[in-house]
Protein backbone atom coordinates (compact mmCIF):
# COMPACT_ATOMS: atom_id res chain seq x y z
CA UNK A 1 0.00 0.00 0.00
CA UNK A 2 1.49 3.32 -1.05
CA UNK A 3 -0.36 6.63 -0.87
CA UNK A 4 0.96 10.19 -0.74
CA UNK A 5 -1.24 13.27 -0.95
CA UNK A 6 -0.46 16.97 -0.98
CA UNK A 7 -3.66 18.94 -0.51
CA UNK A 8 -2.01 22.21 -1.52
CA UNK A 9 -1.26 20.91 -5.01
CA UNK A 10 -3.94 18.20 -5.12
CA UNK A 11 -1.08 15.85 -5.95
CA UNK A 12 -2.00 12.23 -5.24
CA UNK A 13 0.48 9.40 -5.73
CA UNK A 14 -0.79 5.91 -5.07
CA UNK A 15 -0.72 2.30 -6.14
CA UNK A 16 -3.33 0.66 -8.33
CA UNK A 17 -5.17 -0.97 -5.45
CA UNK A 18 -5.56 2.32 -3.61
CA UNK A 19 -6.70 4.09 -6.75
CA UNK A 20 -9.38 1.48 -7.42
CA UNK A 21 -10.53 1.73 -3.81
CA UNK A 22 -10.71 5.53 -4.03
CA UNK A 23 -12.65 5.42 -7.30
CA UNK A 24 -15.07 2.89 -5.83
CA UNK A 25 -15.42 4.98 -2.71
CA UNK A 26 -16.29 8.01 -4.83
CA UNK A 27 -19.08 5.98 -6.42
CA UNK A 28 -20.27 3.91 -3.47
CA UNK A 29 -18.89 4.95 -0.05
CA UNK A 30 -20.60 2.00 1.64
CA UNK A 31 -18.74 -0.57 -0.43
CA UNK A 32 -15.18 0.63 0.17
CA UNK A 33 -12.50 -1.47 1.81
CA UNK A 34 -11.95 -0.21 5.37
CA UNK A 35 -8.20 -0.80 5.45
CA UNK A 36 -7.54 1.01 2.18
CA UNK A 37 -9.90 3.76 3.23
CA UNK A 38 -7.93 4.19 6.43
CA UNK A 39 -4.71 4.63 4.47
CA UNK A 40 -6.36 7.21 2.24
CA UNK A 41 -7.74 9.03 5.29
CA UNK A 42 -4.31 8.94 6.99
CA UNK A 43 -2.83 11.06 4.19
CA UNK A 44 -5.87 13.33 3.93
CA UNK A 45 -7.15 12.03 0.60
CA UNK A 46 -10.41 11.13 2.35
CA UNK A 47 -11.83 13.67 4.76
CA UNK A 48 -15.05 13.57 6.76
CA UNK A 49 -16.40 10.60 4.90
CA UNK A 50 -15.71 11.90 1.40
CA UNK A 51 -12.79 12.31 -0.99
CA UNK A 52 -10.83 15.52 -0.36
CA UNK A 53 -12.47 18.44 -2.23
CA UNK A 54 -9.34 18.87 -4.36
CA UNK A 55 -9.82 15.34 -5.71
CA UNK A 56 -13.54 15.46 -6.41
CA UNK A 57 -13.32 17.02 -9.88
CA UNK A 58 -10.94 14.34 -11.12
CA UNK A 59 -12.91 11.55 -9.46
CA UNK A 60 -16.11 12.86 -11.04
CA UNK A 61 -14.43 12.40 -14.41
CA UNK A 62 -13.51 8.83 -13.50
CA UNK A 63 -17.00 7.92 -12.38
CA UNK A 64 -18.87 9.83 -15.11
CA UNK A 65 -16.50 10.03 -18.05
CA UNK A 66 -17.59 11.00 -21.54
CA UNK A 67 -14.64 9.15 -23.04
CA UNK A 68 -11.83 6.92 -21.85
CA UNK A 69 -8.25 7.38 -22.89
CA UNK A 70 -5.21 5.11 -22.81
CA UNK A 71 -1.68 6.19 -23.67
CA UNK A 72 0.78 3.34 -24.02
CA UNK A 73 4.40 4.46 -24.23
CA UNK A 74 7.19 1.93 -24.64
CA UNK A 75 10.93 1.96 -25.18
CA UNK A 76 13.71 -0.53 -24.53
CA UNK A 77 13.69 0.43 -20.85
CA UNK A 78 10.05 -0.20 -20.09
CA UNK A 79 6.33 0.06 -20.73
CA UNK A 80 4.06 2.73 -19.27
CA UNK A 81 0.28 2.62 -19.55
CA UNK A 82 -1.34 5.92 -18.66
CA UNK A 83 -5.10 6.24 -18.25
CA UNK A 84 -7.40 9.17 -18.79
CA UNK A 85 -11.06 10.00 -18.34
CA UNK A 86 -12.46 12.84 -20.37
CA UNK A 87 -15.30 14.97 -19.12
CA UNK A 88 -15.88 18.70 -18.61
CA UNK A 89 -12.96 18.43 -16.20
CA UNK A 90 -10.82 15.43 -17.06
CA UNK A 91 -8.50 13.21 -15.06
CA UNK A 92 -5.23 11.45 -15.77
CA UNK A 93 -3.56 8.55 -14.00
CA UNK A 94 0.09 8.66 -14.95
CA UNK A 95 2.05 5.42 -14.74
CA UNK A 96 5.35 6.15 -12.98
CA UNK A 97 6.76 2.73 -13.84
CA UNK A 98 7.36 1.60 -10.25
CA UNK A 99 3.88 0.36 -9.44
CA UNK A 100 2.67 3.81 -8.45
CA UNK A 101 0.64 6.41 -10.31
CA UNK A 102 0.03 10.14 -10.15
CA UNK A 103 -3.63 11.05 -10.21
CA UNK A 104 -4.62 14.56 -11.19
CA UNK A 105 -7.49 16.47 -12.65
CA UNK A 106 -6.69 18.13 -15.97
CA UNK A 107 -8.59 20.82 -17.82
CA UNK A 108 -10.00 18.96 -20.80
CA UNK A 109 -8.45 21.30 -23.34
CA UNK A 110 -5.04 20.46 -21.81
CA UNK A 111 -5.42 16.71 -22.34
CA UNK A 112 -3.55 16.82 -25.69
CA UNK A 113 -0.70 18.69 -23.98
CA UNK A 114 -0.56 16.04 -21.26
CA UNK A 115 -0.49 13.26 -23.84
CA UNK A 116 2.22 15.06 -25.83
CA UNK A 117 4.36 15.34 -22.70
CA UNK A 118 3.82 11.69 -21.76
CA UNK A 119 4.75 10.60 -25.28
CA UNK A 120 7.71 12.97 -25.56
CA UNK A 121 6.37 14.65 -28.69
CA UNK A 122 8.74 17.35 -29.89
CA UNK A 123 10.69 18.65 -32.86
CA UNK A 124 12.13 15.98 -35.15
CA UNK A 125 13.96 16.00 -38.49
CA UNK A 126 11.86 15.40 -41.60
CA UNK A 127 12.11 12.04 -43.35
CA UNK A 128 12.05 11.03 -47.00
CA UNK A 129 8.56 10.03 -48.13
CA UNK A 130 8.90 6.27 -48.21
CA UNK A 131 6.48 3.75 -46.73
CA UNK A 132 7.56 0.40 -45.32
CA UNK A 133 5.44 -2.53 -44.28
CA UNK A 134 5.88 -3.82 -40.76
CA UNK A 135 4.96 -7.20 -39.39
CA UNK A 136 2.31 -7.29 -36.66
CA UNK A 137 4.69 -9.41 -34.64
CA UNK A 138 7.26 -6.61 -34.61
CA UNK A 139 4.62 -4.12 -33.45
CA UNK A 140 3.47 -6.51 -30.75
CA UNK A 141 7.07 -7.02 -29.67
CA UNK A 142 7.72 -3.29 -29.37
CA UNK A 143 4.93 -2.99 -26.80
CA UNK A 144 5.61 -6.26 -25.00
CA UNK A 145 6.05 -6.28 -21.25
CA UNK A 146 9.02 -8.60 -21.72
CA UNK A 147 12.26 -6.62 -22.06
CA UNK A 148 13.93 -9.31 -24.15
CA UNK A 149 11.06 -9.38 -26.62
CA UNK A 150 11.11 -5.58 -26.88
CA UNK A 151 14.83 -5.67 -27.53
CA UNK A 152 14.55 -8.19 -30.36
CA UNK A 153 11.61 -6.27 -31.84
CA UNK A 154 13.76 -3.13 -31.65
CA UNK A 155 16.43 -4.87 -33.72
CA UNK A 156 13.84 -5.94 -36.27
CA UNK A 157 12.56 -2.37 -36.32
CA UNK A 158 16.06 -1.05 -37.03
CA UNK A 159 16.25 -3.38 -40.05
CA UNK A 160 12.86 -2.16 -41.30
CA UNK A 161 13.94 1.45 -40.99
CA UNK A 162 16.81 1.04 -43.45
CA UNK A 163 15.28 3.58 -45.92
CA UNK A 164 16.02 6.24 -43.28
CA UNK A 165 19.62 5.51 -42.20
CA UNK A 166 19.69 7.97 -39.30
CA UNK A 167 16.43 6.60 -37.91
CA UNK A 168 17.65 3.04 -38.35
CA UNK A 169 20.92 3.87 -36.57
CA UNK A 170 19.03 5.45 -33.68
CA UNK A 171 16.76 2.42 -33.33
CA UNK A 172 19.78 0.08 -33.56
CA UNK A 173 21.25 1.57 -30.38
CA UNK A 174 17.95 1.46 -28.52
CA UNK A 175 16.93 5.01 -29.29
CA UNK A 176 13.34 4.16 -30.22
CA UNK A 177 10.06 4.82 -28.50
CA UNK A 178 6.49 3.93 -29.42
CA UNK A 179 3.31 5.72 -28.45
CA UNK A 180 -0.21 4.43 -28.92
CA UNK A 181 -3.16 6.60 -27.99
CA UNK A 182 -6.56 4.90 -27.76
CA UNK A 183 -9.78 6.71 -27.11
CA UNK A 184 -13.27 5.26 -26.77
CA UNK A 185 -16.59 6.98 -26.26
CA UNK A 186 -20.24 6.11 -26.64
CA UNK A 187 -22.29 7.61 -29.42
CA UNK A 188 -25.97 6.68 -29.31
CA UNK A 189 -26.03 2.86 -29.16
CA UNK A 190 -22.42 2.12 -30.08
CA UNK A 191 -18.89 2.76 -28.89
CA UNK A 192 -16.53 4.70 -31.11
CA UNK A 193 -12.89 3.68 -30.76
CA UNK A 194 -10.01 5.60 -32.34
CA UNK A 195 -6.29 4.98 -32.29
CA UNK A 196 -3.21 7.00 -33.12
CA UNK A 197 0.15 5.21 -33.01
CA UNK A 198 3.67 6.19 -33.91
CA UNK A 199 7.31 5.20 -33.67
CA UNK A 200 9.66 7.94 -32.50
CA UNK A 201 13.40 8.43 -32.63
CA UNK A 202 15.53 11.55 -32.33
CA UNK A 203 16.11 11.22 -36.08
CA UNK A 204 12.46 11.22 -37.12
CA UNK A 205 8.87 10.14 -36.58
CA UNK A 206 6.85 7.43 -38.31
CA UNK A 207 3.14 6.92 -37.95
CA UNK A 208 1.74 3.40 -37.79
CA UNK A 209 -1.01 3.09 -40.33
CA UNK A 210 -2.68 0.33 -42.30
CA UNK A 211 -3.02 -0.16 -46.01
CA UNK A 212 -4.00 -3.16 -48.11
CA UNK A 213 -0.65 -4.80 -47.30
CA UNK A 214 -1.26 -4.56 -43.57
CA UNK A 215 0.53 -2.31 -41.06
CA UNK A 216 2.89 0.26 -42.56
CA UNK A 217 5.23 2.90 -41.18
CA UNK A 218 4.74 6.30 -42.79
CA UNK A 219 6.95 9.36 -42.15
CA UNK A 220 5.12 12.09 -40.31
CA UNK A 221 5.83 15.33 -38.50
CA UNK A 222 5.15 16.47 -34.95
CA UNK A 223 2.73 19.07 -36.35
CA UNK A 224 0.69 16.42 -38.13
CA UNK A 225 0.71 14.18 -35.05
CA UNK A 226 -0.41 17.06 -32.85
CA UNK A 227 -3.30 17.82 -35.17
CA UNK A 228 -4.19 14.12 -35.41
CA UNK A 229 -4.02 13.75 -31.64
CA UNK A 230 -6.55 16.53 -31.15
CA UNK A 231 -8.71 15.19 -33.97
CA UNK A 232 -9.22 11.74 -32.46
CA UNK A 233 -10.83 13.30 -29.40
CA UNK A 234 -14.61 13.52 -29.45
CA UNK A 235 -15.83 16.84 -30.81
CA UNK A 236 -17.26 19.45 -28.44
CA UNK A 237 -15.50 18.07 -25.36
CA UNK A 238 -15.65 21.50 -23.81
CA UNK A 239 -19.41 21.51 -23.82
CA UNK A 240 -21.97 19.44 -21.94
CA UNK A 241 -22.30 16.61 -24.39
CA UNK A 242 -20.00 14.69 -26.65
CA UNK A 243 -20.93 15.00 -30.29
CA UNK A 244 -19.31 12.73 -32.79
CA UNK A 245 -18.63 14.31 -36.18
CA UNK A 246 -20.55 12.59 -38.95
Amino acid sequence: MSVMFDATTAGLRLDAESFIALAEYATDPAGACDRTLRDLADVGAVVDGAPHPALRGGLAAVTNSLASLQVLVTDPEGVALHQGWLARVSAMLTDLGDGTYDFESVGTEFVPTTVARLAGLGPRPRLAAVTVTVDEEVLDGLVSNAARRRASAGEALADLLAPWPAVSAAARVGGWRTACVDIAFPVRDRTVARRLAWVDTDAGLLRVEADDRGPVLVPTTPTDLWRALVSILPADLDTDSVVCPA
Partner: protein
Amino acid sequence: MSDAHPAMGRARMPRMTTISTSGGHVSIAVPASWETVELGPGGDVVAAVEPDDGSRFRTNFVLATPAADGPLPDWDAGDVLVLDRDDVQVAGHPGTHRVTTHATPAEESVTTESWATVVDGRAVTLTANIGTLRVGELARLVDAVAASIAVRRREGVHA
Protein backbone atom coordinates in the same frame (compact mmCIF):
# COMPACT_ATOMS: atom_id res chain seq x y z
CA MET B 1 -2.56 1.11 -36.32
CA SER B 2 -3.76 4.65 -36.49
CA ASP B 3 -7.31 5.38 -37.52
CA ALA B 4 -8.57 8.03 -39.89
CA HIS B 5 -9.43 11.25 -38.12
CA PRO B 6 -12.87 12.48 -39.05
CA ALA B 7 -12.46 15.86 -37.43
CA MET B 8 -9.24 16.75 -39.25
CA GLY B 9 -9.77 19.82 -41.41
CA ARG B 10 -13.52 19.41 -41.43
CA ALA B 11 -14.24 23.14 -41.28
CA ARG B 12 -15.27 24.51 -44.65
CA MET B 13 -12.90 27.02 -46.19
CA PRO B 14 -14.44 30.47 -45.90
CA ARG B 15 -14.35 33.26 -48.45
CA MET B 16 -10.99 34.99 -48.08
CA THR B 17 -9.73 38.54 -48.30
CA THR B 18 -6.24 40.04 -48.21
CA ILE B 19 -4.70 42.11 -45.44
CA SER B 20 -1.27 43.69 -45.59
CA THR B 21 1.19 45.55 -43.48
CA SER B 22 1.96 49.19 -44.17
CA GLY B 23 3.01 49.89 -47.72
CA GLY B 24 1.46 46.63 -48.83
CA HIS B 25 4.80 44.88 -48.99
CA VAL B 26 3.67 41.82 -47.04
CA SER B 27 0.20 40.32 -47.20
CA ILE B 28 -1.82 37.26 -46.24
CA ALA B 29 -5.26 35.96 -47.12
CA VAL B 30 -7.64 35.66 -44.17
CA PRO B 31 -11.35 34.87 -43.81
CA ALA B 32 -13.34 37.82 -45.09
CA SER B 33 -15.76 37.73 -42.16
CA TRP B 34 -13.04 38.11 -39.55
CA GLU B 35 -12.29 41.35 -37.75
CA THR B 36 -9.06 42.95 -38.92
CA VAL B 37 -6.98 45.04 -36.59
CA GLU B 38 -3.90 47.19 -37.00
CA LEU B 39 -1.73 46.68 -33.94
CA GLY B 40 0.74 49.43 -33.20
CA PRO B 41 1.15 52.83 -34.80
CA GLY B 42 3.46 51.99 -37.68
CA GLY B 43 1.26 49.55 -39.51
CA ASP B 44 3.94 46.88 -39.19
CA VAL B 45 1.60 44.56 -37.31
CA VAL B 46 -1.84 43.59 -38.56
CA ALA B 47 -4.18 40.88 -37.32
CA ALA B 48 -7.33 39.04 -38.28
CA VAL B 49 -9.49 37.77 -35.42
CA GLU B 50 -12.28 35.23 -35.56
CA PRO B 51 -15.76 36.56 -34.71
CA ASP B 52 -16.58 36.34 -31.02
CA ASP B 53 -19.05 33.58 -30.19
CA GLY B 54 -18.96 34.48 -26.52
CA SER B 55 -17.37 31.31 -25.20
CA ARG B 56 -14.39 30.00 -27.08
CA PHE B 57 -10.91 31.31 -27.73
CA ARG B 58 -10.91 33.54 -30.80
CA THR B 59 -8.54 32.11 -33.37
CA ASN B 60 -6.34 34.84 -34.80
CA PHE B 61 -3.59 35.44 -37.30
CA VAL B 62 -0.98 38.12 -36.64
CA LEU B 63 1.31 39.35 -39.42
CA ALA B 64 4.32 41.38 -38.29
CA THR B 65 7.14 42.97 -40.27
CA PRO B 66 9.45 44.69 -37.82
CA ALA B 67 12.97 45.73 -38.78
CA ALA B 68 15.34 42.80 -38.41
CA ASP B 69 18.74 43.70 -37.03
CA GLY B 70 20.03 40.15 -36.82
CA PRO B 71 18.91 36.55 -36.92
CA LEU B 72 15.33 35.60 -36.10
CA PRO B 73 14.59 35.62 -32.37
CA ASP B 74 14.88 32.56 -30.20
CA TRP B 75 11.25 31.59 -29.80
CA ASP B 76 11.81 28.84 -27.30
CA ALA B 77 11.82 31.13 -24.30
CA GLY B 78 8.86 31.08 -21.93
CA ASP B 79 6.62 28.48 -20.45
CA VAL B 80 5.58 26.73 -23.64
CA LEU B 81 5.74 23.18 -24.89
CA VAL B 82 7.63 23.20 -28.17
CA LEU B 83 6.02 20.61 -30.42
CA ASP B 84 7.73 21.24 -33.74
CA ARG B 85 10.41 23.35 -35.36
CA ASP B 86 11.50 23.05 -38.95
CA ASP B 87 13.31 24.92 -41.70
CA VAL B 88 10.84 25.82 -44.43
CA GLN B 89 10.37 28.22 -47.30
CA VAL B 90 8.25 31.23 -46.35
CA ALA B 91 7.00 33.16 -49.37
CA GLY B 92 9.91 31.70 -51.31
CA HIS B 93 12.54 32.70 -48.75
CA PRO B 94 14.41 30.47 -46.28
CA GLY B 95 12.59 30.56 -42.98
CA THR B 96 11.33 28.60 -40.04
CA HIS B 97 8.09 27.02 -38.89
CA ARG B 98 7.41 26.42 -35.24
CA VAL B 99 4.51 24.94 -33.26
CA THR B 100 4.03 25.37 -29.53
CA THR B 101 1.25 25.08 -27.00
CA HIS B 102 0.77 27.02 -23.80
CA ALA B 103 -1.80 28.12 -21.24
CA THR B 104 -3.10 31.66 -21.45
CA PRO B 105 -3.57 33.74 -18.30
CA ALA B 106 -7.27 32.79 -18.57
CA GLU B 107 -6.25 29.10 -18.45
CA GLU B 108 -7.09 28.41 -22.08
CA SER B 109 -4.98 25.93 -23.97
CA VAL B 110 -3.72 27.64 -27.11
CA THR B 111 -1.62 26.24 -29.92
CA THR B 112 0.59 28.69 -31.74
CA GLU B 113 2.00 28.11 -35.22
CA SER B 114 4.55 30.61 -36.49
CA TRP B 115 6.29 31.11 -39.80
CA ALA B 116 9.18 33.54 -40.08
CA THR B 117 11.74 34.75 -42.56
CA VAL B 118 13.81 37.86 -43.21
CA VAL B 119 13.39 39.82 -46.44
CA ASP B 120 15.04 43.13 -47.27
CA GLY B 121 16.13 43.67 -43.68
CA ARG B 122 12.68 43.10 -42.24
CA ALA B 123 11.48 40.10 -40.31
CA VAL B 124 8.28 38.66 -41.72
CA THR B 125 6.38 36.69 -39.11
CA LEU B 126 2.96 35.10 -39.32
CA THR B 127 1.59 33.77 -36.04
CA ALA B 128 -1.59 31.71 -35.82
CA ASN B 129 -3.13 31.28 -32.37
CA ILE B 130 -5.74 28.54 -32.16
CA GLY B 131 -7.68 27.05 -29.26
CA THR B 132 -5.98 23.67 -28.93
CA LEU B 133 -9.12 21.56 -29.23
CA ARG B 134 -9.72 23.13 -32.66
CA VAL B 135 -6.32 22.62 -34.28
CA GLY B 136 -7.56 19.65 -36.28
CA GLU B 137 -10.74 21.37 -37.36
CA LEU B 138 -8.87 24.50 -38.49
CA ALA B 139 -5.79 22.80 -39.97
CA ARG B 140 -6.77 23.50 -43.59
CA LEU B 141 -7.44 27.15 -42.89
CA VAL B 142 -4.17 27.61 -41.02
CA ASP B 143 -2.21 25.96 -43.82
CA ALA B 144 -4.01 28.07 -46.43
CA VAL B 145 -3.24 31.32 -44.62
CA ALA B 146 0.41 30.32 -44.21
CA ALA B 147 0.63 29.43 -47.90
CA SER B 148 -0.80 32.84 -48.82
CA ILE B 149 2.07 34.88 -47.35
CA ALA B 150 3.25 37.16 -50.13
CA VAL B 151 6.25 39.48 -49.94
CA ARG B 152 6.73 42.26 -52.47
CA ARG B 153 10.36 43.37 -52.62
CA ARG B 154 10.96 46.99 -51.70
CA GLU B 155 12.33 49.18 -54.47
CA GLY B 156 16.02 49.93 -54.14
CA VAL B 157 16.62 47.11 -51.67
CA HIS B 158 18.73 44.19 -52.78
CA ALA B 159 18.64 40.77 -51.19
